[in-house]
């Protein structure tokens, strides 16, 4: 009887898997279509009216060329790439820590990047010769170096990558510590406050083709290994003991995944500042839409995160145009609202 049941169950299980895969492919296509649509929309949303922008598309001129192809297009593609990196980082963080509230900045990358930018601004303003090399890095380089330093400090404090609680605790400690140092420095130099605010609230305003190239390269470099490691992530979701018994080399797997998490977060934060909620919300949105395994999540979360940040970028420049809102405020409003709805729906179900 058990044999019969096993034989009968096989086609039903595979049919369900095929249906799920079909649904997953459908959602991937939807995310891509939304990104393409938003790219088109972003070309006509800015300081000019939609009608004027459409006119520019029809009859190009020197100024309109600059606005459309040197400002709006790289800006929206950069926003998509940064969002995709945050989505990927969020998917990795939530899988590695087996915590749905895990997000890319958990390991001190944002506070490290913020401290790097603060130091860079102070060095260039006060001409501290001892730290002149930091000024040479530029804000982007300083943010990247700071993010990497923050993550390294977290890993050093937690004495490795194996213990999730000590990693999380070290991440919190590093975030507070570096944040306090940054605040102390800013108090001594009030002129840099506003520039720092732009960074801390996220900004897509100055994304150019160089930023797009950098973000795209990091995304292209990060996705294949993340996909290859996703089998290990699937095993991790069953628990560390189970993963161990399945022969997964836990230490090297976690080290590789945290390396990817650091690279993707640092690249994103160096280009668009600290944009919250995208990395947290994108994997949730994917899981809410379709049942996915880790490999599928690694593909879908970046697509979803990219579209999210693209949409937030368009809203940030449209709501109070020709002024603009920091993009981090828009993502916080959108992401926060979504999480509240998610919690409410969960409470209703229970």
């Amino acid at each position, binding site marked *: 009887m058990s044999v019969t049941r096993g034989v009968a169950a096989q086609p039903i299980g595979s049919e369900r898997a095929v249906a799920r895969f079909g649904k997953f492919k459908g959602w991937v296509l939807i995310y891509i279509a939304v990104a393409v649509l938003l790219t088109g929309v972003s070309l006509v949303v800015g300081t000019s009216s939609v009608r004027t922008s459409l006119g520019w598309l029809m009859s190009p001129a020197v*100024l309109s060329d600059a*606005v459309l192809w040197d400002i709006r297009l790289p800006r929206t593609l950069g926003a998509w790439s940064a969002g995709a990196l945050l989505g990927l980082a969020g998917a990795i963080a939530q899988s590695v820590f087996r915590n749905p509230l895990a997000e890319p900045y958990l390991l001190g990358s944002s506070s490290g990047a913020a401290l790097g930018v603060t130091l860079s601004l102070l060095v260039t303003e006060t001409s501290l010769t001892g730290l002149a090399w930091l000024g040479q890095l530029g804000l982007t380089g300083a943010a990247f170096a700071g993010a990497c330093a923050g993550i390294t400090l977290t890993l050093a404090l937690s004495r490795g990558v194996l213990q999730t609680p000590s990693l999380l605790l070290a991440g919190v400690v590093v975030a507070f510590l570096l944040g306090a140092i940054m605040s102390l420095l800013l108090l001594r130099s*009030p002129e840099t406050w506003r520039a720092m605010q732009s960074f801390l609230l996220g900004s897509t305003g*100055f994304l*150019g083709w160089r930023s797009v190239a950098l973000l795209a390269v990091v995304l292209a470099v990060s996705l294949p290994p993340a996909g290859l490691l996703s089998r290990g992530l699937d095993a991790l979701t069953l628990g560390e003991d189970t993963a161990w018994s399945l022969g997964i080399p836990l230490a090297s797997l976690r080290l590789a995944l945290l390396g990817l998490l650091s690279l993707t977060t640092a690249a994103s934060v160096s280009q668009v500042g600290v944009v919250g909620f995208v990395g947290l919300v994108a994997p949730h949105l994917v899981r809410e839409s379709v049942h996915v395994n880790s490999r599928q999540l690694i593909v879908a979360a970046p697509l979803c995160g990219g579209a999210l940040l693209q949409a937030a970028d368009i809203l940030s420049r449209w709501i109070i145009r020709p*002024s603009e809102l*920091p993009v981090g405020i828009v993502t916080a409003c959108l992401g926060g609202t979504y999480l509240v709805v998610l919690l409410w729906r969960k409470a209703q179900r229970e």
Partner: protein
Amino acid sequence: MRSRPGALLVGLLALVCTCAAGRAADAPIVLFDSAHHELRLEHPPTRIASLLPSLTETVCELQECGHLVVVDRYSNWPASVAQLPKAGGLEDVEIEQIVSARPDVVLVAHAPRVLERLRGLGLVVFEFETQRYADIGRNVTVIGALLGVPERAARLNRQIEDSVEEVAAAARSRLAERAPLVYFEVDSGPYGAGPQSFIGEMLGRIGVRNILTADLGPFPRLNPEYVVRANPDVIFISPTEAPHLIHRPGWERIRAVREQRICSFPPAVRDTIVRPGPRVAEGYRALTECLLRVAP
């Protein structure tokens, strides 16, 4: 910007209430600050705490610098204030430092938490509005009345206005035909100085056109493409940001960037431009000198 409908009356009230020239020697000084708080002193204060650079500068320009006993961290002019104890800034004011200096009066800008705490400790606190050009003259008048030197205050106000008008008139006549279009970047957000801001008022008075419109507010955060579309002739920006303008997407096409018509000022000069205080004429001079040099 906060609206202070009664603020315009403060200067007049100060004069009416104190009128030091005609004030009887034993009559108390009664003043109302920009938030309409009544301040009553039996004698002009001899121990003054100032928590804003422009107020510190005003006290010193009224030749009462010797009465300052504590100042904020950012007060750096005149050089003599460097010797005074520092009480932090408005964000992290050191209450203990102020109390231990035993001031007769504390001069401060609008900062609710600081005001509440200092008043709670029984200190006499006087609040000032320091946002617009008109606030300069008003604050000079009020501080002059408070310190019992209204004639000096009136003289200082005349000096400030005469110097500013002299610089502005000369600039207007030389820039009249050119009327350059300018963008003043306050910070790399990018935040610009609109016509309603103190800096915007200065630019308007010397006869240049601001790319920002009044409806955007005093310091709007801009979509960078706004600046590209406006294509300013001259850009005012901090020396640290100036070399990076060319790397901002699309900005290489802006006339000011293309033709290197950029004005940047070292911190000491920038202080005179961004502080609505008695050295405003120096700020005007620095602005116009650079404008005349680089404007097309």
